């Protein structure tokens, strides 16, 4: 009897291990598909650079002449980490929202009827979006010398990690939103109503200090604020900023006069990502 128990027990154990193996294989496959599709759509790669670069130069140069230079530090340098964030966010949301296309072309059904957990599908999708968005954001760093932003190896690593976190949070958010959209038309609405306001009101494009109260409140509610600030923080940390410039283009998000530490900001983004991962999994294609 004991021998049988052991046999059954170990069979169950290997079943469990197999199950995890299968889930991982599914995650990897969904991830791979995202990458293959991304690589195949050259226009998508290019177009996701156009907007941030436009913003960087138009807004960067325009505002620099308006705002002026403080101790050798100008608005272009200030906005650069914000533009990198913008690239990451846009790419992540676009990638997540491709579920709407999957629904339109029917492939979503192929995924949903498969005997796999929705968790694995959503997680694979989120990792795919994260990878793509992180790559895109990192490519933007190539413009740093042009803007006069110093890069170090450590900085690049830090930026990549922060981009990945930001991208993951935004992809889960995007998957959640996309799972609520039944029609293609909904996509434009989401872009206008969610993506752009989120970017513009995150401190990516302007300093968060000295804002009117209503704007300050909105930026503090916007979770993206807490993803953008750490990135700017690590970039500025290696720029040898004179005190005047550091004061003018301050980093850190203050609530009631208290500055939230970077680690706290990262914590907020992690919580945001976990919540939306959960919501995305729950909302991902329920049977009727």
């Amino acid at each position, binding site marked *: 009897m004991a021998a049988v128990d052991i046999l059954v027990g170990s069979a169950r154990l290997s*079943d469990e291990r*197999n199950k995890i193996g*299968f889930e991982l*294989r*599914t995650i*990897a*496959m969904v991830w791979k*598909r995202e990458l*293959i*599709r991304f690589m*195949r*759509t050259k226009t998508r790669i290019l177009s996701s650079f156009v907007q941030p670069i436009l913003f960087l130069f138009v807004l960067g140069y325009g505002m620099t002449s308006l705002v002026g230079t403080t101790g050798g530090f100008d608005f272009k340098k200030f906005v650069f980490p914000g533009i990198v964030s913008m690239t990451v966010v846009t790419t992540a949301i676009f990638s997540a929202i491709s579920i709407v296309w*999957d629904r339109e*072309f*029917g*492939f979503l*059904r*192929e*995924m*949903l*009827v*498969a*005997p*796999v957990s929705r968790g694995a599908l959503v997680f694979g999708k989120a990792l795919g979006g994260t990878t793509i968005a992180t790559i895109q954001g990192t490519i933007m760093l190539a413009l740093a010398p042009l803007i006069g932003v110093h890069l170090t190896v450590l900085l690049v690593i830090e930026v990549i990690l922060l981009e990945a976190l930001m991208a993951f949070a935004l992809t889960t958010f995007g998957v959640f939103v996309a799972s609520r959209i039944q029609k293609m038309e909904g996509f434009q609405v989401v872009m206008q109503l969610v993506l752009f306001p989120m970017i513009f009101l995150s401190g990516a494009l302007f300093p968060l200090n000295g804002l009117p109260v209503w704007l300050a409140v909105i930026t503090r509610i916007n979770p993206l604020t807490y993803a953008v600030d750490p990135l700017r923080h690590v970039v500025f940390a290696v720029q040898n900023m004179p005190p005047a410039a550091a004061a003018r283009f301050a980093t850190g998000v203050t609530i009631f006069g208290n500055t939230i530490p970077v680690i706290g900001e990262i914590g907020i983004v992690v919580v945001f990502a976990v919540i939306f991962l959960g919501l995305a999994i729950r909302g991902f294609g329920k*049977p*009727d």
Partner: protein
Amino acid sequence: MTESYDSASNGPRPENRFDDLLPNARQNTGVSTALDKNVPVAIDVQGIEKKYGEIEAVKGISFQVERGEVFAFLGPNGAGKTTTIRMLCTLARPTGGSAKVDGFDVMQQPTAVRRRIGLVFQEPTLDQQLTAEENLQFHAVLYRVPRDQVEERIESVLRLVDLQDRRKDLVSTFSGGMARRLEIARGMLHTPAVLFLDEPTIGLDPQTRALMWKDVLRLRNEEGVTIFLTTHYMDEAEYADRIAIIDHGTIVALDTPDHLKKMVGSDTVELTTSNNTLASSNLETQGFSVKVGDENVVVFADNGESQVTSIIEAAGVPIQNVRVHRPNLDDVFLHFTGRQIREGPAERSFPMHFRNFGHRR
């Protein structure tokens, strides 16, 4: 849990030439081994029903499908065909009744059911931006095909639908028919016990439809899979072993194509002879029921083709022409529902009498 993923070890099979695509093809093949476990029926449906608010899409239907059977659901638009498939595939929750697929309850054990079925939707569900191969690889992973068998399975299903040489091409470059056949191949990739095909031939031209049927029957013959399909093409349903005619959410008739046609009326054997009056009186004295037409003699017989020789003998005059007519499925549908099926093709693919003489025993 893993047994259903073992590749179907059916042993060597004779090279199948598919010159016989008719329903009795099944009798020539050893459809028994791999999937015959201890579950006698592949699909067992007991009073299943589905209400969408006020609409009763499926009104409590029951039927069984045997292993290795090709079972067709024939009905017009909105009859409840897709809804039934969706319930059997655990995509919609029945509002009443129960169903088992390969021995597993669709409500209690949905994951087990999903692992044992292949499903081809009415609408396309391929990723156009992936190649045929990539679509299949994706599917293989999601359906837990063991890593070392993936390559072999992909090759064999592509061969099954004759798409080997399009393997590396993007699906967006495929014609509608090719894409449809790739979907069927994909449905078979994980060696399911039951393959559900929701209108597999919709929107295909007659040649491609014939090819598709070749594929379907070949699958059944080579892999022993049970096939449940829906259609509203009358002539297609005749390829099936059994047909359920569904209308307004209820099954109005369920039987083999032959039996269904018999229920509608007997066969007729039309004779053109040198002397029709003599022939008919000869036949009548032999106990046949006969009607003399303008140019021929019509004999009513239960099993027309097997009686042809005795009818010719009984007529006792030189025969110029013989034609056996069986009621076709259009007649069947009309008989059971009181109306014409709405979307039947105008032309039948083969003349009935040709079929009867050519392929029946």
